[in-house]
Each structure stands twice: as structure tokens, then as C-alpha cells.
């Protein structure tokens, strides 16, 4: 989860090294589907697709941490959905995203008789015991953004698949450079698992006939460090005079690259896209440095998680593979293997819509 690490590792105060942050705190967000191998999804009872959504469901959101703009946006999306299904919305959470800080909140929610607990796990194992107790007490458990072990929850709402990111990024850069020319990738660290998985899939994607005129010349690594990303971006532009575009699928890299381009002679001539948050990219979209970039919409993520929880609590679905449910304005979703529901392709942000988002 290199891409959002900077967003959320903030509160992991006094953690000894950035390295620890880079690996530990980043475990969840862009979790690849490959990760969940054990198929222990105990689909108790049978699903009744015709069951109506119950009214008055008590649905609680427990993010990794409160006061984090990403989760605030996600929880507001959840609130919207809960209001739509005429439920009771509640948001609680720790101010610090440490492994065990969520346990006491889960216990409290369980005692309060919540019907659904929607949570983003700070640690895949630490909250399992508490979640299982809550489940025994009758609550349905939905995780979003960062999963627990599959046996500790019914549904995991995954923001995006690695394939979805690769397709989206290649499509964006292709549109911006007019379908032909040299491109490069500015990644995070050379051994970031999720980044490398995406890059491999992007390479596969580039083999498609419609991208045959695009040539990926190199992959540079900015180590999710502003200064290093700056230097790597400069190096790319000097080493490849014909470079037409750069993909930077990491929030730190794309912001640094945009900042560099905006103050250089390459502004507007070399295209840049990647995964970034609207707030950090707003300036560069408005000054014409960046045409469009992408990220999943956290509000939709929370919205979908709330609907999944309501569908579980109403008996429409049990979390078994193949269950279908409708999530309001987002349409119909199907539960995949291990109880995973995928939100869908990332949202693209450009001049026309960027001011509608605040995260």
C-alpha cells in the first residue's frame, strides 16, 4: 500500500523508523487479491436474495483512525448509504492507527448491540478475537480498505484490483500522449510488492494491440521520498529526450513529479498521470501540469461497505461466493472468492470534477 502510506501513517506516532512505517502500516490498502489464500468464509445459513433491506439497522463505522481525511470521506459515504436504507449511523475510532487500538471500540460496539460493524483493520490479526466475539453476539462484520484474516469477517470490500489499476493507468497515459510515444514509470521503492505487481500488469496491458505504439522505456524508483522522486523525475527527462509521458502509481511520487514539472520547461509537454489524492493534485490540475489522474473514491468505498453490511444483516447475502446485492446508486455487486467485493475501476479526476472531492 505504498500509494496511500503517507496519508495514513501519520498518526503512527513515535514508530521507530520510517522503514517500519513503510512496511507495517502499509500492509492493507492496496492489498492484492492474491493475499487472501485461506478460503475460510463461514457462510452460515442461506441467503435469500429477495429479502428486503431491514429498516432501523444499527450500522457502526470503525475506521483505522479518525481525523484522517481519507477515512472521514469514506465514513461520510457510509453515512449516506445508511441514511438511504433508513438505518442508524455511528462512527467511532481511535486517533492513532496502531494495531490494537481498535479492540476496545469493537468490544463497546458489540455490547451496544450493533447490527453491523464496518471496519478498516489496522492489523489483520490483532482485532480478530474482538470481531469474533462481536459476531457471536450477532453483529455482521464488513471490512473495507484493509482486510482482516478472512475468517474474522463476512465481507471485505476491496477498493480496486491490481488489474483494474493497471488498465486504468495505461489507458489514461495513452489518452494523454495521443496513443504513441515513449513513456516511463516512476514507482515507489524497487521492492514494493504491490507496486511491482501493478507494473508487471501494466507491461502486460501495454502488449495489447491498441497500445502497440507506446514504448515503456524504463522504471524509476523515487522511494516515496520527495527529494528522490524529484531527482528521478529530472533524470528521466534528461535520459530520455523523447519521453512523452510518465505514470507514477504512488501518491508521493505523483505529487513530487507534478511539482517538478510545474516549475520546469517540460510543463504541459510531458504528460503525467498516476494515483494521487485530489487535494494534493488540485494545484497541478488547475495550472495545467496534469490532465487527469486516478484513485478510488473513498466515499464510494464507504457507501458500498454500508450497503454490503445492510444486505448481510437483512439476510440478502451471507458472504458466500456468488451472492448478489444492490448498493444504491452504485448498482449491483457480486461477492467473489473469500467474501471479497470489489468496488470497481478507480475514479478518474480531472479539471471538471476535482473540486467535488475533498480528501
Amino acid at each position: 500500500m505504498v500509494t496511500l502510506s503517507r496519508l495514513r501513517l501519520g498518526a503512527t506516532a513515535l514508530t521507530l523508523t520510517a522503514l517500519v512505517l513503510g512496511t507495517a502500516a502499509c500492509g492493507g490498502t492496496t492489498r492484492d487479491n492474491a493475499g487472501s489464500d485461506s478460503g475460510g468464509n463461514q457462510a452460515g445459513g442461506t441467503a435469500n436474495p429477495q429479502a428486503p433491506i431491514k429498516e432501523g439497522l444499527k450500522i457502526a463505522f470503525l475506521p483505522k483512525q479518525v481525523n484522517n481525511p481519507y477515512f472521514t470521506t469514506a465514513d461520510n459515504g457510509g453515512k449516506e448509504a445508511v441514511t438511504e436504507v433508513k438505518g442508524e449511523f455511528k462512527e467511532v475510532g481511535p486517533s492513532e492507527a496502531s494495531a490494537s487500538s481498535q479492540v476496545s471500540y469493537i468490544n463497546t460496539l458489540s455490547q451496544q448491540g450493533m447490527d453491523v460493524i464496518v471496519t478498516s483493520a489496522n492489523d489483520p490479526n490483532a482485532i480478530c478475537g474482538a470481531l469474533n466475539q462481536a459476531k457471536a453476539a450477532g453483529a455482521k462484520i464488513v471490512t473495507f480498505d484493509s482486510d482482516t484474516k478472512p475468517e474474522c469477517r463476512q465481507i471485505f470490500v476491496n477498493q480496486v484490483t491490481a488489474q483494474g489499476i493497471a488498465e486504468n493507468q495505461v489507458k489514461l497515459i495513452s489518452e494523454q500522449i495521443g496513443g504513441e510515444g515513449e513513456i516511463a514509470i516512476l514507482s515507489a521503492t524497487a521492492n514494493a510488492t504491490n507496486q511491482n505487481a501493478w507494473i508487471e500488469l501494466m507491461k502486460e496491458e501495454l502488449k495489447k494491440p491498441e497500445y502497440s505504439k507506446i514504448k515503456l522505456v524504463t522504471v524509476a524508483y523515487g522511494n516515496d521520498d520527495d527529494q528522490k522522486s524529484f531527482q528521478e523525475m529530472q533524470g528521466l527527462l534528461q535520459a530520455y529526450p523523447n519521453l512523452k509521458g510518465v505514470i507514477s502509481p504512488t501518491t508521493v511520487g505523483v505529487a513530487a513529479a507534478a511539482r517538478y514539472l510545474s516549475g520546469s520547461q517540460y510543463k504541459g509537454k510531458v504528460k503525467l498521470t498516476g494515483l494521487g489524492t485530489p487535494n494534493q493534485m488540485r494545484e497541478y490540475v488547475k495550472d495545467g501540469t496534469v490532465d487527469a489522474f486516478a484513485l478510488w473514491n473513498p466515499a464510494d468505498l464507504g457507501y458500498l461497505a454500508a450497503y454490503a453490511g445492510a444486505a448481510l444483516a437483512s439476510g440478502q447475502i451471507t458472504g458466500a461466493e456468488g451472492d448478489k446485492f444492490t448498493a444504491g446508486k452504485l448498482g449491483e455487486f457480486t461477492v467473489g472468492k473469500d467474501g471479497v467485493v470489489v468496488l470497481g475501476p478507480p475514479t478518474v479526476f480531472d479539471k471538471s470534477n476535482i473540486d467535488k472531492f475533498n480528501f
Partner: protein
Amino acid sequence: MSRTDAGVTERPTGAPPAGAGRPGRGLTERLLAVRELSLLLALGALVLVTTLHNDRFLSSQSVKDLLLGCAILVILAVGQTLVIVTRNVDLSVGSILGLVAFATGELFLAAPGTPWPVALVTGVALGAVCGAVNGGLIAVARVPALVITLGTLYAFRGVDYYWAAGQQINAADMPRSFLRLGNQTLLGVPVLFLVALVVVAVAGFYLRSFRSGRELYAIGSEPTAARLSGIPVGRRVFAVFVASGALAGLAGVLYAARFGTLDAAAGTGLELQVVAAAVVGGVAIFGGSGSVYGAALGAVLLTMIGSSLAVLRIDPFWQQAVVGALILAAIGLDRLLALRMAARLRGRSAHGA
């Protein structure tokens, strides 16, 4: 003594011993002994190799990028030099920079109309306060600065994390005039680099020409002797840490202007680069010698190594190792020159006596 004799035979015959070292010595050799010049040579070689590989390396855009890229490290290296010269070290500069950078962003969030000079002064003041904490703790606890600043490295970063609480400050939150400071040029030279030049010039002049500046070297050479000779060691060391903190604060404000995206992790790990720049620049880690010019050149050299490696497309897995090897080479060269210089000085004084 054979060594003395060797020294004597090298000298032109008939020259008076006292002035012997001056006119006759091979010019290149004496130039090499000046640390700054050997650094300039290394810089030149690096530019040459990289430019031969890719002539865009000397384009105006690229030179501008290089100057911009080294400005912050140069400022930090100057502050670090003041500290190291007194036989101390300040490991907290990266954290101070991060804290001040975030504070600058917060200031603009809280009061969007703040003119940037106010932000600059506030940042420097906050940095100085952090430096005063370092200096005060060292004075009170009488513990080596290495230990104290290792502690404050985490403490300041912790405050930063607590304050930021996962929040990120973005370019859109800061005024355009402030951000422009980060990549504006004056006569083709980035403003940030000009600020760094002023800092180097002022600190260099102070260290060379002021009594208190010379006393810093005395403290670093032999603290006990310095104390006995009436130099207020405690006060000078405290002042040096305040200065280092203030410069880190200045660097923090400039960091905010340059990168535009701020969170609690800004400047993590920078302290080691700063110490490396000073050491590569010929500042003796055990105090008592070195100049801010050398440290500044060391910072330029380190930045340029980073940029060249990116241009030369060195495998990322090798980059850090290459940087390390170059640092060792620079220090090795320095040591070699220092030994030859020492041998010469010994020879001269023996002859004179």
C-alpha cells in the same frame, strides 16, 4: 630523522627555512591540499562523465535543477558544520526540518493571507526554539550531543506526528506567492540557491573573522584547554545548537515552498545526508577543523551524485551502494591529503627549530 631530511631535500636550496614552504612548493600539490579545490575537482569529473554520457546534463534546466536540489542540503550542512566544529553533532535537524515544514503549512491553513516573510521568520524562530531545547538539554544533562540529539530526533518527529495526525498539507493550501519562492529564479539562478549562498557567506565570514567564530574551533580542538583559556564553552555550544536549529527551521520553510506536499514524514533520514555532506566536505568529525565552504561543496557533490545516478540510469538497487562508495572515496582522498600535509608541516617545523 629521515623524514625531515626528505622534506629538506625537496626544498629549493638556499631558501630561508621560515618561508621555505611558500614559493617553491609545486603549485598543483598545494592547491590539492586545499580541501575545497579537491572537491571542485571531484565535482568537475562527475559533471564531465555524466555530460559525456548525456549532454542534456548541462542544459540550463538541468543546472537550475541541480542548484535548486542542493539548496536545502547546503543550508543544513552549514548549520551542521558549526556544530561539528565544536566537537558535537546535531542529529535532530531532519526532524526539526519536518516539524517546521509542517508548521509552515499549518500556518497557511490557519491564516491563508499570511505573507511569506512572516512564515519565514516564524519557521526560523520555531527552529531556533528546537535548537535551544537541544542546547539546553546538553548544557543541563552534560551528556554528549550525539545522545541528546538522537533523543530529540525522535521527540521532535513524535510531536510532528501527533500534530499532523495523518493530515497532509497540499500545494493548493499554500499561497501561490510562497510556492513560487520554491522554483523562482533571479537572473537564471534559483532563489533558494541564492538564500543558501547568503547563508554560506555569512557563516563563512563569521567563522573566519569573528573572535567567537575562532573560539568554536578552539573548543573543538581541545575543549578543556578552551575552557581553561577563558572561552565560555557552554554558552558557545548552546549558541551553536540554536543556530543549527534556526538554519534547520529556515530549511524547513524552504522545503515547504519547494515540495508543496507536506506530511509528518517530511525530511525523514535527512540528518545522515547532512552529516555525510559535512564530512565529505572536509569537516573533521572530531571537531576543530573544516569550513562551511567545504561542507557546502560536499552538499552540492552529494546532490549531484544523486542526480547523475538518475541520469546515468544506474540500477536502483546499486544506487545507494554507489553513493556510499563515493563518500568513502572522498574521505579516503581527504585522509591521504591530510597525511601528506601533516608530514610536510612536521618537516617544516622540525627544520625551523
